[in-house]
């Protein structure tokens, strides 16, 4: 057993930097200032994340963390089972928005992200691990155009590898702290562990409601579940990581967390709407997956409250049918539309977007440029078309 943890350095390979593997069409949705700032960090973010995964996925790293007690036979499995399914998620994403947020926070405080690469890598690794778990509970066959983790290695293996990568941050923070102080490492670990746990509570509602067979949940209960589900890994946790790694005070960190939470709620509500009604008005190849999966979203709950009883009953029937029939999916959307559920959901989403902007305005402790970049980032997230 290794009693003393030796800090090691992450060496990002800038040559592997990133713009070759993703479509950058989304950059047109960003303000020029934001896209410039984003592109400045993209190469560093991607190479840091991949270098970290490579390091943690090596036999030598495992030997180090378990005092040499690693069976040689594991070598043949390591890349195939432990690293490749996870790395494939990271490589498919490309955007690296979460590491970018971490860099943004650190730079706002004059901290150099390259001196604490672990904080940058963490945000994306946790997000990707959570996607592996999401794909299991949603039984999704595809993720970003490629096979989901469990279709490659099985439900249990994918679950345990996702759990390990999700918790890899704890090992990374202790072994690769970079310029982070002991206190910052402890604060990060404490916050990450809380976020991991409350995400389970939020997800509980998401997965248990469709099994209960009734739809009379309150809209505010859905919002509460969103606070502890999608808000975490999307924006609240990356902003917390960035703030703590930047050396922000407790009070300032709380502001970043509030911003992430509010943005996460806005994002989820808009995502729910776009899933059923894309901004361009056209359904693509995959449509209304939320209805096919029987998801009970804010839209569904609002429709259940507003629609005539027979229409509500019909909507419930379609949700329980787990159907891909376009006519039925279209009928469900039409029921939600005609009773004003979309309009009501948009109003609620708008309130949260407004709150998000107000929080950014109140972050007087940040230099103007960074407040502007955060505001632009909020606009980018809430105004995307799909």
């Amino acid at each position: 057993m290794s009693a003393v943890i030796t800090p090691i350095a992450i060496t990002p390979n800038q040559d592997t930097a990133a713009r070759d593997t993703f479509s950058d069409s989304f950059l047109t949705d960003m303000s020029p200032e934001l896209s410039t700032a984003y592109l400045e960090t993209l190469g560093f973010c991607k190479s840091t994340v991949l270098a970290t995964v490579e390091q943690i996925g090596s036999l030598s790293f495992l030997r180090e963390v378990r005092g040499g007690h690693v069976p040689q036979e594991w070598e043949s499995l390591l890349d195939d089972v432990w690293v490749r399914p996870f790395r494939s998620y990271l490589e498919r994403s490309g955007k690296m928005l979460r590491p970018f947020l971490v860099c943004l926070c650190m730079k706002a405080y004059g901290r150099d992200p390259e001196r604490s690469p672990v904080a940058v890598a963490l945000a994306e690794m946790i997000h990707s691990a959570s996607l592996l778990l999401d794909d299991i509970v949603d039984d999704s066959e595809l993720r970003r155009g490629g096979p989901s983790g469990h279709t490659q290695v099985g439900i249990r293996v994918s679950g345990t590898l996702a759990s390990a990568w999700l918790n890899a941050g704890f090992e990374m923070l202790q072994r690769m702290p970079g310029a982070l102080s002991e206190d910052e490492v402890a604060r990060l670990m404490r916050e990450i562990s809380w976020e991991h746990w409350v995400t389970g509570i939020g997800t509980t509602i998401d997965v248990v409601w469709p099994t209960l067979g009734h739809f009379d949940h309150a809209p505010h209960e859905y919002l509460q579940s969103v606070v502890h589900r999608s808000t975490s890994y999307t924006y609240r946790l990356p902003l917390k990581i960035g703030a703590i790694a930047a050396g922000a005070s407790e009070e300032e960190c709380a502001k970043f967390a509030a911003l992430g939470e509010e943005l996460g709620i806005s994002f989820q509500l808009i995502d729910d709407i776009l899933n059923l009604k894309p901004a361009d008005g056209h359904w693509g190849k995959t449509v209304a997956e939320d209805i096919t999966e029987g998801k009970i979203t804010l839209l569904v709950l609002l429709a259940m409250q507003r629609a005539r009883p027979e229409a509500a009953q019909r909507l419930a029937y379609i949700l329980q049918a787990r159907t891909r029939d376009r006519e039925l999916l279209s009928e469900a959307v039409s029921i939600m539309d005609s009773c004003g559920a979309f309009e009501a959901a948009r109003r609620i989403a708008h309130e949260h977007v407004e709150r998000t902007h107000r929080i950014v305005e109140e972050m007087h402790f940040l230099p103007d440029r960074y407040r502007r970049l955060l505001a632009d980032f909020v606009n980018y997230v809430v105004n995307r078309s799909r």
Partner: protein
Amino acid sequence: MHGQSLTTWAARFGQRFEQRIPRRIDEAWLTRFVDAPRFGWDMAGLQVGFIDPLYRFVDAHGTTVGGQACLRHVRPAFACKLIDALSSRDEAVDAEAVLRFDAELTALELHALSSMMLDHLDNGRNLATSQGAERQLALPVLITVAYSARQLAASMLWRESALVGKRARALAQRFSRLLFLQGIGHTLDLAGGERILEHGDEQALEDHLRWYLSPLDFEIACELAAAAADLPADAAQALIGAGADLGIAWQCARRVQFRGDSQASGQRLDQPVRWSRLAGGTSLCEGAPREAWLSIGARAKERALAGARKVGPRAEEVFEEFFTETRTDLSARIDMEVSA
């Protein structure tokens, strides 16, 4: 015997566990462990989606001792016994002084429960082919309960530890790392099992076992006891190493004694064993290399006792009693008895 038996400590801890995670949660509990509600919880949803399934496993799963009595909470019970032995200045048992570490003890139990919840599932390529022996819960719910239990354990240590300062931080850090280590071990174990990989020799199998739930959990139990008793660093390290070896020995004995008897053991013991062939080509699950388990287990037991001895006679006594009470007997006699 020093102090109370594992069974007594398990019963005491069981009561404390139910105080920390009540069978019926309310808003005060959620506010304490999660956060004050911004919009309002669906309490009924969380009850049926998390707490009820959690207690289904708390109530159903334990460790069979001698195929008869069911000792639940074996990890926390061992930790209690060790804390009591190392911390008390006399023979009088001060249960409250031990149980004040209930956050740490609960974390240990949650971690073990979380792993057991998923033991009965198959490694299918979709949910429909992974249901395994699970008949009551939809898999997305079961998987989420297991996930939540594990992560609650880590969060509880960061936020509710009875230890203070650096000791609290060190234990929380080690526990958080444990989730990572066990995740890797379990991933490679399952994948290796599916591919029927072979171990080269007994040492390789022993190294493999070191990444299992039990060695990792008993390490943490020992680290908690060391922190609670304020042991010096070298004694703490000896105790933690002994904990890992105790976990390996216990694991080996259970393989031999309860193999194939999942109802008795509470786990499907045949599952991870599938890949553990040794040189010579005989699969462990086919019965012949029982000797391999016995010899690895016996060596680990010896090392565990030697490690505990370095800490002092009380620690050694607790380890001895653990092996006796859990019938972690790795002698040929037990082997024959079970065979018969």
